[in-house]
């Protein structure tokens, strides 16, 4: 169980977190005209300039694009958790999100396939968690 950060998001950031909490799945901004996915959300689609969007669930399939392993923190919520990893997870839909993980140091490498899930803290914040994707037999 994670401690809940108080971030008080506004506007599209709030809409993103609301949609994700309601679905219990990671929901990203999805252009209803050209199908492009965008994160963090913005008012006009960067591909077709449409303002017609929804927050739709993504598949959860992703890979590690980058990451950092933190060995030091002064933050109460994190200093006892070192070393902890934060991943830059690239979804197959396109957008990248920061994700937590309990994968081992050896497993965390660029290009490794992962699966994303969310831990809903409340309607205004959910954590994205990554785990190693199961390799098909």
């Amino acid at each position, binding site marked *: 169980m994670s401690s809940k950060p108080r971030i008080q998001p506004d506007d599209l950031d709030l809409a993103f977190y609301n949609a994700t909490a309601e679905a219990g799945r990671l929901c990203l901004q999805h252009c209803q005209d050209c199908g492009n996915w*965008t*994160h963090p959300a913005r008012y006009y689609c960067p591909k077709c300039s449409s303002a017609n969007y929804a927050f739709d669930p993504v598949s959860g399939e992703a890979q590690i*694009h980058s990451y*950092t392993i*933190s060995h030091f*923190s002064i*933050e109460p*919520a994190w200093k006892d958790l070192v070393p902890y990893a934060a991943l*830059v997870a690239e979804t197959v839909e396109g957008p990248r999100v*920061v994700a937590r993980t309990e994968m081992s140091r050896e497993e965390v490498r660029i290009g490794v396939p992962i699966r994303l899930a969310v831990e809903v803290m409340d309607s205004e914040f959910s954590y994205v968690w990554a785990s190693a994707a199961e390799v098909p037999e």
Partner: protein
Amino acid sequence: MTAGLSGKAAIAGIGEYGYYRGTDKSILQMVLAASMDAIKDAGLKPSDVDGIIPPPGFVAWDEIAAHLGVPEVRYTACPQMGGASPVAGLINATMAIAAGLAEVVLVPIGWNGYSALRPRPDARPNKRRFSAAFFETVKNYYAPYGLRSAPWWYALYLQRYVEYYGVAPEAAGAIAVACRKHAQLNEVAVMRGRALTMEDYLQSPYVTEPLRKNDCCVETDCAAAIVVTSVERARDLRHKPVTFLGGAEGHPNRPDELINRADILKLGLDYAAPRAFAMAGVVPQDMQFLQIYDCFTYVALLELEALGFAERGGAGDFVKDGNIELGGRYPLNTHGGLMSQGHCWGMNHIVEAVRQLRHEAGAAQVEGCEIGLVTGYGDLGDGTIAILGRGA
């Protein structure tokens, strides 16, 4: 061939306040002190100033004008790009002067980068903040994951640089060691008297991979300022003018977020550098010193690549064997940089470039230098560059 703003203005005055780890002075007091020094250094008075480009946060143009006693402000603007702002301010001042909107433009910056994080028990919190949208991005998407401040944000892309391109820690270490070596020649450098060898660097503990403690610049209380005027007017003032030869700003797409860019390693400077060299009519190999914005060693390596001194991932060859140390081909951060002089948002890099081109850099002087460059890097990758020359 030069173009655009090349040769349209010169830096006539420089001022610095610092560099300290702990001070009783407010940010405003430090900024005013550096500003007054820069005005006097130019041989001018506050009443000669008619343009003010304030820092992107903490203090505003109107109070600077009021406290210094500037009777008439004809031009003010405020670039909002963190550590890329001082060079952007210089470009903006040049533009205002070239356009005839102002004659003498003051560009100051300062902060209590040390004391703000370690406030005295009786200190009142500083209420002035920044307006850039990236603070929202950080608050909503990075900070909840234990990525609270700059080392943690930038590590998100720097780890890809290190792992994908196989960048050795010794490449970053060469930046840290060169800056520390140069700081030994600088009386006001925070890290004067504290040597750093490559062995020391490699044993430095990780903060957040790939950043070790010695990859990070030093938090300091300080301020610095420049006074910019026309080349003609600068010739009649106290010092040899330092001429603006070329400059540009550039920004990653998208600028308000760090990880959703097609190429997360492409800095604003990648966009800006070719435009600046074209404006100045020179090539990178003409440079005789490099004052590179060095908030983190690996960012400085990426900047050297953006400038064209190496291919992506190849800066390690450029920085080795003393090439970036005084006596080498491209002395880098001859004042010690953010790494070892202090973090003054890179305004200290402009001040040092001016000292070099005046031939007043003391023990750190690059013999007979005529031309060099300064870069800025701010917020989530904004980039700026100015190419400066010794005036006639």
